[in-house]
């Protein structure tokens, strides 16, 4: 009786919004770990290089500790990434059934890079003591290279959903032929991949810098903390200006190739020229822009500076309502866009301050306020990243494969998704909280036990007087 009632309730629940929520939630979680996976290894290698080349013990300690943190964040990233490969099928079986032959191609290559990353990260993390310094350094390099190419491959698959090329369909819509190069190097791929890779360095750099900025504000202004901050911030300060250019180019690509998404981004209900750039605001029930702060003509000027305010931007009304984002989704895309551009600009100004200070004073900014803002940049950069990803994904709605398949036609018919969604949220919240607690616990222990830890010299004998491998190992284990 009870099970019957429950079954009826479960049957009445539409799986599509739950599938969408679960995918969005698990991806939003995973994407935070991506920058760390891609760029932290590079920062660690910078410190490692300095440590070997200049005999810098602070740098060496930094590299060694970072690699220990990386072991944790990489593990969390690896398992949350594995979940995604289950979810493609569990949540979107019809999408995978119809398009897997094309969508899967970039993942076949991503597999190579992920393998490389997993193998070398293990060698690097566990190789500190027994490998020769430069040999050990070089085992870290493939991690950095694989991280870049791995994320390019994944973004290529996502870009293909925006620009589905390289496939031939028969009259029933079945894929009959696939051109792998056409799939991987689709029109959206170069700029989207560049945008994500640079974002990984930008966000990763700011996350690391913000942790050390917080430490410095608490009075830990020793050389070690300063160096941690400088390495992180420098990486971010190189990536941020580059990202302004890449982001601008990508926006222009969307303007030319996905005008409906662009109309949602700029919140343009009707095709016109001299379109204002509305900061915030939303669409009312009649589909008109209300609220917000309009800057006259700016959206047109930014879309194509050569024609200025006379640039025409296609409106939402050019696309049938069923084939474009709903008004509510347009609000979300537009807000996310404002957040991304706004926060990105703020971070860019902060890096200008940084570069100006180095240019004129040959030192990092002295102001407490610089450190205070920097301590927030980790969180701000993550919000920027999530906002940018929201623009890309929600802006594509209602399509899962642009103009070829809608999200609602791709989802599983399994009505139990709401249960797995709740399970995933509980598990991931627990995972997120625990990850942060564990990282903090490690950091506290490193500080308290720094004397002990320094005895733990990398590249040195781990236990003086013991030379045989097996005994040495037991000494470590005990």
């Amino acid at each position: 009786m009870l099970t019957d009632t429950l079954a009826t309730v479960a049957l009445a629940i539409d799986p599509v919004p739950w599938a969408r929520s679960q995918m969005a939630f698990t991806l939003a979680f995973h994407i935070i770990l991506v920058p760390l996976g891609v760029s932290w290894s590079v920062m660690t290698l910078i410190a490692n290089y300095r440590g070997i080349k200049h005999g810098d013990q602070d740098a060496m300690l930094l590299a060694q500790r970072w690699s220990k943190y990386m072991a944790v964040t990489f593990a969390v990233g690896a398992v949350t990434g594995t979940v995604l490969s289950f979810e493609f099928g569990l949540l979107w079986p019809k999408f995978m059934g119809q398009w897997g032959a094309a969508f899967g191609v970039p993942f076949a290559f991503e597999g190579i890079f992920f393998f490389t990353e997993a193998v070398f990260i293990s060698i690097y993390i566990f190789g500190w003591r027994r490998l020769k310094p430069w040999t050990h350094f070089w085992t870290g390099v493939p991690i950095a290279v694989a991280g870049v190419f791995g994320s390019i491959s994944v973004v290529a698959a996502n870009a293909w959903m925006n620009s589905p090329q390289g496939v031939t369909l028969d009259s029933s819509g079945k894929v009959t032929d696939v051109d792998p190069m056409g799939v991987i190097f689709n029109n959206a791929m170069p700029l989207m991949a560049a945008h994500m890779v640079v974002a990984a360095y930008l966000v990763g750099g700011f996350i690391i810098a913000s942790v050390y900025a917080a430490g410095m504000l608490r009075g830990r202004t020793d050389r070690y903390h300063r160096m941690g901050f400088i390495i992180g911030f420098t990486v971010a300060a190189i990536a941020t200006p580059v990202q302004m250019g890449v982001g601008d180019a990508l926006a222009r690509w969307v303007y030319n190739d996905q005008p409906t998404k662009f109309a949602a981004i700029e919140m343009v209900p009707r095709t016109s020229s001299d379109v204002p750039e509305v900061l915030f605001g939303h669409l009312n029930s009649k589909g008109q822009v209300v609220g917000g702060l309009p800057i006259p003509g700016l959206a047109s000027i930014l879309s194509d500076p050569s024609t200025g305010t006379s640039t025409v931007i296609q409106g939402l009304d050019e696309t049938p309502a069923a084939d474009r984002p709903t008004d509510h989704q347009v609000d979300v895309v537009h807000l996310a866009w404002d957040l991304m551009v706004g926060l990105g600009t703020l971070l860019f100004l902060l890096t200008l301050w940084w570069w100006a200070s180095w240019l004129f004073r040959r030192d990092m900014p002295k102001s407490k306020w610089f450190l205070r803002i920097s301590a927030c940049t980790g969180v701000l950069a993550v919000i920027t990243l999530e906002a940018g990803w929201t623009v890309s994904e929600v802006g594509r709605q209602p399509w899962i494969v642009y103009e070829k398949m809608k999200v609602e036609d791709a989802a599983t018919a399994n009505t139990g998704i709401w249960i797995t969604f709740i399970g995933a949220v509980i598990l991931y919240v627990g995972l997120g909280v625990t990850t942060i607690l564990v990282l903090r616990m490690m950091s506290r222990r490193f500080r308290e036990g720094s004397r002990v830890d320094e005895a733990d010299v990398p590249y040195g004998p781990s236990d003086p007087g013991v030379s045989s491998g097996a005994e040495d190992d037991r000494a470590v284990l005990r």
Partner: protein
Amino acid sequence: MATAAAVVLFAAITTYAIFGGADFGAGFWDLVAGGSERGERPREVIDHSIAPVWEANHVWLIFIFVVLWTCFPEAYASITLTLFVPLTIAALGVVLRGAGFAFRKAVLRTRDRRNFGAAFAVSSVLVPYCLGAVVGGIASGRVPSGGKAGDPWDSWVNPTAVLGGVLAVCMTAYLAAFFLVRDAGRLSDESMVAYFRRRATAAAVAAGVVAVAGIFVLSNDAEYVFDGLTSRALPLVVLSLVCGLAALVLVARAARRGARLAAVGAVASLVVAWGVAQWDYLLPKTLTVAAAAAPSGTITAVLVATGLAAVLIVPAFVLLYVLDQKTLLPEESLPEASPR
């Protein structure tokens, strides 16, 4: 072309069964190692054994999925639609397991270690059970083709699926025990060598009993695979049996070499036997390999990627294992002065 892709798929499944299996099985022995004091030393050996390799071992699972959904998208859609429940549990288990293991290494307090260790160990049994049940559901022909969902419960709660799950857990424990005998030997810890040798013997007997019982289950519940196992895949079944017996004799006689290799051979030939037995079906009796295959452009791309992987990844893997086996990747433990 489709055949080549199917061979790649099965090679990946076999590799995962061995390396991922040994890794899951280490979690099984962690689970049954007893209280925090009694189980301390075995857990140290387990930690030491799998810490450098566990992430790389599980990339195989992702590779299997990628080959499956890229080369055989229809089969992937049918499998994920029908076997939704065990696959979801496996996915969540993968998270618990990896995170539990990584966190346990990073904390020092006994209470924390026990909690994370429990998450790691329990999911180490749960995940192979679910994956084994998925194999059983497929092998017994309960997954329909054409992107239709089969029965959400019967597809994995049936004799063959239960057999698949139990056999998977037995085989992981079996493999792991043989690997751990070797790893304990490398640490020159004779008491642990004896400890895992006893467990290897027990697991070998258990896996053998389940496998024999499985013959009767399959003959009633999965006829196509049963027919295959008793005809064209018979040499492989016999090979598996011979390897299994050899491993048992070698480990019981405390032979220095060969036992682990024989155990690997027993599991590998059994997995390959399954593949040969259900040939040329991907989903027995409903979907053949040829019918499920993606267009040739896709399969070429996957084969190229596989070739690149063979050139790039295999040497990297060999390097990792050689370094690990030469104990050049010692436990990079955290500062040890802190109180336990």
